């Protein structure tokens, strides 16, 4: 579903991504973990071309994302993206946040868009928040609206860039539950996360990055009990022993 081939990206002399390749089969869930500055966020942002790349190729659902001939607006319809800082539209209600793109991009009628939008918000436990503005919602509620907003475009792939990092601890669960539910429904997903327990539980594969490179790829059981590389062992000893 997602195929990343030999991607390089640098800001001047600083290499952010070095020769990164990764395959994510349909319905798989991949966690990107690693120390900060490893290039996890940059990598996930290149998958829907929020970040340009220097060379290499990224193919999502058969479409080469960074090809100049690709209509990126059309390609992005297949790729939902959830940001660390939610990025909800503050002047629109929760329901309007969810319906604006289906209406303005896909040309759905207001009725169609609202019907689907309400279903999504209800399924994410936000049935009583249709008319609330983002400023009146908790962080966890805002992030669930953001997930509903991305799902409203019926994407084939969902990308999550540290979806719980900006949340108070007691709100992390509700957002992780929403992602867990999507995993059960067979959504193809890439998640940048620091929630190791969550990564271990729902992911098919752990991708460990450091210094702009993929250092290790393994099944969760293997990775968390017996990682091959020293770099991963060091990282895990730091994040798991407290």
């Amino acid at each position, binding site marked *: 579903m997602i195929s990343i081939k030999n991607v390089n990206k640098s800001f001047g002399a600083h290499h952010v991504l070095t020769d990164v390749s990764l395959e994510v089969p349909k319905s798989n869930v991949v966690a990107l973990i690693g120390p900060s500055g490893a290039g996890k966020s940059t990598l996930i942002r290149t998958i*829907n071309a*929020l970040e340009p790349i220097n060379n290499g190729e990224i193919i999502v659902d058969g479409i080469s994302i960074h090809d100049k001939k690709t209509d990126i*607006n*059309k390609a*992005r*319809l297949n*790729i*939902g*993206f959830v*940001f660390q*800082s939610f*990025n*909800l*539209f*503050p*002047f629109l209600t929760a329901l309007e946040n969810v319906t*604006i*793109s289906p209406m*303005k*991009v*896909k040309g759905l009628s207001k009725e169609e868009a609202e019907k689907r939008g309400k279903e999504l918000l209800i399924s994410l436990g936000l049935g009583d928040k249709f008319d609330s*503005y983002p*400023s009146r919602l908790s962080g966890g509620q805002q992030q669930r609206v*953001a997930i509903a*907003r*991305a799902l409203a*475009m019926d994407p084939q792939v969902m990308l999550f860039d540290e979806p719980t990092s900006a949340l108070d601890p007691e709100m992390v669960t509700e957002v992780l539950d929403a992602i867990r539910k999507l995993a059960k429904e067979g959504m193809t997903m890439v998640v940048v996360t620091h929630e190791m327990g969550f990564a271990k539980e729902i992911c098919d594969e752990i991708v460990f990055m450091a210094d702009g490179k993929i250092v290790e790829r393994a099944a969760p059981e293997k990775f968390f009990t017996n990682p091959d590389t020293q770099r991963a062992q060091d990282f895990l000893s730091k994040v798991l022993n407290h």
Partner: protein
Amino acid sequence: MYQYDWSVISRNMDVFIEGALKTIEISALAILIAIPIGIIFGMGRISKNVIFRLISSIYVEIIRGVPLLVLLIWIFFVLGQFLKLGSYWGAIWGLAIFAGAFIAEIVRSGIQGVPKGQMEAARSLGMSHAKAMTHIILPQAFRRVLPPLASQFIMLIKDSSLVSVIAATELTLNAKNLVATSFRSIEVWTFVALIYFIMTFSLSLIIRYFEKRLSKSEA
């Protein structure tokens, strides 16, 4: 000792009213022209197109660096030679071109003040740059620019007094003429100041009302 004679005001009320109405008319037309100028060049200042950005910057920088009085006279005498502007349209275009440059800066800072994540979120949902601008960025920029835009409108009403130098009929020119015939400068100019204050203060009350209504819909 100066003998006040305030009857000059009541006897010439028609002159003041006509002048005030002309001031409002000239200011309103100038604002209507200045807003699209400001939006176009404000977006030009942050455009990816180098030529558009350069033209916009040159316009804004030149106008900001030239006094309005000089600009009005220049437009009237230099542009007026080719365009047959006359003092009425010369005054309106002069004010519009002047205010347009300041509105462009207000629009630019309004757009740049919208967090970067808003454009990213809109683009990630498949919106083109233009659609994201129209449906997501500009509505938020609009709320941000209202207060500075309001002070710009008030400035424009006050600045319109300068168009008397190119003989455009409005409140200040009418007052000058009245002083020339009645010699009642203290009474006339006091009353003129009061009229300008009433016009600008009413406008600021109207704008405050709209700002409150907008902020209500968001809270």
